């Protein structure tokens, strides 16, 4: 009797039948370490690359010498080549300076999104293509899944770790060249795998913050050194009553609650306006800090494939781990309006919106930046 053995690959896009040359971006963290290991296990010819991005002192994330050392050691353990690319100038120009400039103009840009957009998935990917790699892989918790034969970006299976938001601006051409091996796993599985492999990064804490900002200086310290920060007056919009002051008006974010306190009525206040001409921060109670309509410029719209559908329901996420909200995209004179079904807390100008398919809610459709 013939026995038909069907091999079911648990990770379809890692276990490709053909062996490929894959560059894995290794930050020195556990996710990219395990991603590299999975690619090696799948039989690919794997090369680790670590980006040196920030020229200054840092204590976390993808920038420090000790992180590079961790990545190099993991590569040695896996028996793969490892290289360090110096992209400090490009990172400064494309990520750090716009972050500083954005704040000076009262915007709150997301540096991780910009880094992914310009450095990791443009400069690095271009470089990998030129060097003859078939694919670029990263340790992001997101997936590449097929829909109608087309690779699509999707949420990672671990809801709490999903990073599809920070990849939502990737174009189809990039997604087609991408492998995201750990997106198929729960974070706990990633750590278990790292422990089983004896990788030194197995128990390394997740990086939380912006990699070029030291924890002891914080956002305030970093921007305070680089911007001429000015104090601002906090005024309750409803009553016109002055509630206090802030030390650095440029660092106040629309929608912010932290550090604002309660109004005369005892209710918490939220930032609803920042006027950098008068150095005034306007605050309001929650019911006045909600909005239904978010404006985005057409130039900031990106799509992972087809154009974003207008006048029909899509899902939007307004922060890295925010709640998915139902909305409709409408054409407006100067771009698009994102009209939420239910009003939500104000979103700061400069923030990224990630759009998902309402009928296939893990699938990323595209992104835009709040005007």
């Amino acid at each position, binding site marked *: 009797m013939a026995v038909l053995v069907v091999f079911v690959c648990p990770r379809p896009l890692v276990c490709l039948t053909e062996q490929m040359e894959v560059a894995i971006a290794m930050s020195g963290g556990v996710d990219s370490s395990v991603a590299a290991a999975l690619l090696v296990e799948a039989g690919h010819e794997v090369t680790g690359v670590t980006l*040196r991005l920030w020229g200054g002192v840092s204590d976390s994330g993808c920038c420090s010498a000790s992180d*590079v050392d961790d990545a190099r050691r993991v590569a040695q353990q896996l028996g793969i080549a490892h*290289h*360090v*690319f110096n992209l400090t100038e490009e990172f400064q120009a494309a990520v750090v300076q716009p972050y500083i400039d954005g704040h000076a103009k009262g915007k709150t840009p997301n540096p991780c999104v910009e880094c992914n957009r310009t450095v990791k998935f443009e400069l690095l990917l271009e*470089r990998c293509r*030129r*060097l*003859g790699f078939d694919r670029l892989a990263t340790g992001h918790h997101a997936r590449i899944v097929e829909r109608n034969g087309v690779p699509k970006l999707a949420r990672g299976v671990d809801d709490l770790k999903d990073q599809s938001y920070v990849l939502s601006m990737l174009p189809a051409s990039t997604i087609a060249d991408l492998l995201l091996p750990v997106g198929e796993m729960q974070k706990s599985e990633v750590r278990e795998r790292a422990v089983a492999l004896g990788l030194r990064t197995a128990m390394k804490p997740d990086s939380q913050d912006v990699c070029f900002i030291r924890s002891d200086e914080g956002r305030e310290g970093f921007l305070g050194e680089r911007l001429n920060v000015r104090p601002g007056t906090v005024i309750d919009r409803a009553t016109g009553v002055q509630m206090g002051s802030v030390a650095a008006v440029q660092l106040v974010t629309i929608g912010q609650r932290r550090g604002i306190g309660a109004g005369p009525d005892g209710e918490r206040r939220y930032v609803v306006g920042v006027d950098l001409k008068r150095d005034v921060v306007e605050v309001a109670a929650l019911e006045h800090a909600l909005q239904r309509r978010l404006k985005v410029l057409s130039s900031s719209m990106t799509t992972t494939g087809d154009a974003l559908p207008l006048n029909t329901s899509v899902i939007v996420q307004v922060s890295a781990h925010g709640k998915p909200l139902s909305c409709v995209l409408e054409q407006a004179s100067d771009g698009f309006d994102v009209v939420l079904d239910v009003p939500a807390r104000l979103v700061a100008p400069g923030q990224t919106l990630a759009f998902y398919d309402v009928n296939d809610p893990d699938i990323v459709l595209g992104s835009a930046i709040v005007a």
Partner: protein
Amino acid sequence: MPYFDHAAATPVRLEVLEAIAPLFTTAYANPSAGHASGRSARAVLDNAREEIAQLLGAQPGEIIFTSGGTESDNWAIAGTLERGLREGLPRAVVSSIEHKAVLEPAERFQARGVSLVLVEPNDDGEVTAQALGALLDESVSLVSIMAANNELGVVNDLGAIAKTVRQRASRAVIHTDAVQVAPWLDLQAATAAVDLMTVSSHKLGGLKGTGVLLAKEGVRLDAFVLGGAQELGRRAGTQDAIGAMAMAVALRCAVRDREIDGARVAKLRHRFVQGLLALGATETVKAKHMLPGHAHVAFAGLATDELLVGFDRAGLAAAAGSSCASGATELSHVVAALGRDDDVAKGIVRFSLGRTTTNDDVTEALAIVEATVGRLGGIRLPEAARLLD
């Protein structure tokens, strides 16, 4: 797998391995120990010292073993500047393209009142006696000019440099970093010209972790590594007799072979450089006197780290001038001192051929360079052409 990074490290010579292998069981003792085993180790160390002295044209008492070129450089600079400050000689003159092992300790002394003056190289990467002379006076305690630049391979005229220093800064101690020239050129003339000289073993086919600071008799140098009376009380720390012997044998072989090796490698280098030029690369410097193995070239419009990874993926080992703690390449201070255009400076690679390089290596390396450069989008010729103006 062509290895074109001999300026960074060379394969250990077989003669060295054969000479030191038995010593691991016979000369393991501490050379400072008074017992028979210690005396055996001490004899190995002193034999090595004597042989190195003779090969360099020095006296055994002038040879101090160190942990390598970096320590020798650091010590030469710090030891001399320390004395200079005490003796009222606050000025130090070094070239701007010295190894960081010279520049960083010199810079550190600025906070202590040393006035550091940098001599710039000429357009060919040479540090000339003329340029140096203009900066000298009788307040100079230290002049440090390398015998040949580690990145460019340009050889300086130490005889002329020393003559100028003796005329214009008679109290100055002259140091030279001779790490790169040691495999290729006779050092006896350099020894005669200077007061302090740095040599490193692993560039000669010896072991990493051994170097020499040649300190001419009468040159007083404050101790740098403290905590023992080894090396005639000048450098503390248990002496490495086996490493010293490895260096002596390596230097002996280098002296024996260098005329033949030098001529052969220079021919290979010529063929290699002609091949690179045909691909559109440019030589960054065109000095008359170059080390035989160095090829320092620019691939205009391409990025150094991309080129190096491309070469590595195809099996060719080359280098850039400088890398930071993370291992990422950085624009080197040597290239910066030459003041080349950005799109040239960003695509610079140092190839360094050595005594084990073969004609087949050159053929293979050229094929790899051609394929890699093509894959990376090719050299941007307009910039390359502009460089030749």
